[in-house]
């Protein structure tokens, strides 16, 4: 039996001393006190990686990192940009030049043709409130709203399927080691999945029943992300539920 007491991993809490060795350094989620103790700032799992002591939080908003792919929802428009909710403390900014390719046709005809000009298309009308896009984070910091782009491979407007959200710290568990978990989900449930770094997951299955099972499985992974043996358990759960619900 593989995972007996391994299941109860040590969860550290804010203010808890997690190391006192002066050789170790405080990594993410930890700070060094004046007296040399290293203390956790989150409720999370402690890990020691080389010389660093980190605490991985078990909950929290998404922190934009440059290069991350995120799924954002248009919630506001100004005359010059779109504002997207990306499940972070700031809204993401999407400028039309980062969302739509400019065609040379919109520049109008050259002056030699007279005063005739094509009406300039209003870029700002191309996206509506509530549209969901896959974007990449171009820039962002502690003090600035992140800028996004939806131009690029696998980026842009989503037109079908459904997007659900889980805590962004648990996203890697949905992907799994070498993509093992996501492969498992795709193979057993015959669905398409795209996992974004900000905790949002796009899914598209064959039928509503398999989509619903997939959603439940993803929530199960989120809940049990801190345990071991998860892939086996998820696989068994899917197989059992498929049989119970009569999903092919």
């Amino acid at each position: 039996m593989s995972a007996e007491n391994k299941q109860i991993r040590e969860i550290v809490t804010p203010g808890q001393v997690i190391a006192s060795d002066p050789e170790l350094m405080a990594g993410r989620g930890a700070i060094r006190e004046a007296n040399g103790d290293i203390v956790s700032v989150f409720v999370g799992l402690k890990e020691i990686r080389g010389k660093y002591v980190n605490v991985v939080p078990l909950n929290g908003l998404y922190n934009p990192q440059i290069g991350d792919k995120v799924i954002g929802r248009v919630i506001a428009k100004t005359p010059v940009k779109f504002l997207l909710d990306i499940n972070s403390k700031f809204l993401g900014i999407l400028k039309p030049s980062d969302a739509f390719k400019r065609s040379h046709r919109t520049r109008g005809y050259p002056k030699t043709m007279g005063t005739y000009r094509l009406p300039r298309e209003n870029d700002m009308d191309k996206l509506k409130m509530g549209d969901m896009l896959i974007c990449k984070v171009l820039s962002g910091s502690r003090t600035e709203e992140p800028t996004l782009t939806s131009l690029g491979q696998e980026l842009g407007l989503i037109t079908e399927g459904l997007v659900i959200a889980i805590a962004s710290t648990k996203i890697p568990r949905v992907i799994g080691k070498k993509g093992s978990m996501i492969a498992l989900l795709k193979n057993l449930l015959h669905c398409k999945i795209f996992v974004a770094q900000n905790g949002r997951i796009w899914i598209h299955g064959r039928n509503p029943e398999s989509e619903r099972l997939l959603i439940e499985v993803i929530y199960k992974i989120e809940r049990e992300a801190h345990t071991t043996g998860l892939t086996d358990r998820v696989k068994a759960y899917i197989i059992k539920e498929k049989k119970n619900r009569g999903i092919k």
Partner: protein
Amino acid sequence: MPILVPEPHDEVCFREDGKRLDGRAVDELRPFSCEVGVIKNAQGSALVRHGKNLIYAAIYGPREVHPRHLARPDRGILRVYYRMATFSVHERKSPAPNRRENEISKVIREALEPVLFLEAYPDSQIEVYIEVIAADGGTRCASTTAASLALADAGIPMKSMVVGVAAGKAQGKVLLDLGDKEDKVGQADIPCVVVMKDKSISLLQFDGEMTLEEMKLGFEYVLKGAEIIYQKQLEALREKYNKISRQAEIEDAELSKETPKEEKTASESTDTAVSPESSDIFKSDVEAESAENTRSAEINETPEASETPSTEGSETKTSQEDVSSVGKEAKEENTLSEESAPSEVPPQAGEDNPTGDDK
């Protein structure tokens, strides 16, 4: 018109056997229990039962500040709303917020600010909503205890937990954790909030008559009581996850009964492979892998790859590679459209997600 059954207003706070009216000794805490994750909509939440107090706290944020003029460019702001339900007290309280609630909201905010890293959230706000469903003395202390739990549950970084507990005096004796009657008819009341890391005090108010020696004894009681509550807070924070772990164990046990051969799935151990920057213990080795491996993993029905996980991922490339492997997954499903869509229109979703082949 006063209601029919009045609250007792006499001075008696002790029984004949010398114990307090609810059977406690002078330095004994009321029964305390707490739980986190009780309000699903909130970022973090907690329920505290302290004596007969029943208090919910919920955290929303960090998010943008409304109204905008309150935002501070150098640090985040904490907003606390302490409210009592109309039916939480003996005589129905009007639903409109009153001055007492206003003041208490402020002192609770000032009790929480020292343990938060507000500089990490410029231009943002963190909202703490406290709803007292049943009140029985010492609500501002119990509310701060609940708020501290809710903040930790929300994943907001904190330097320490804080615990609220009051001391006071009734009929000449210094008491720990005043109950409702002791609070109302007693001689003194010192509500406090203790920062558990260094045992400093972040909320302090005092009303009544007490000598300095009595006050000192009161503080000793407070620190003693706070320690007991603190342990319960930690237990509640862990229990949220330990409960799930225990259920997972049961499921595992059932599983192993069904599959006789026990394969330890090496791929499951999550103790490995992440650099300090990326910090996600849940992130397995996705970042270290090349496209070929991910593709073959997909086709494979049994996902366990039995390779030993590499121990050090390369630091700076982590997020890029992670992104690229996710992207590559998606690419498998994508029927790339042959040509790019006309450029006025934003790229439409192909099969999996927007095809974005930009030519």
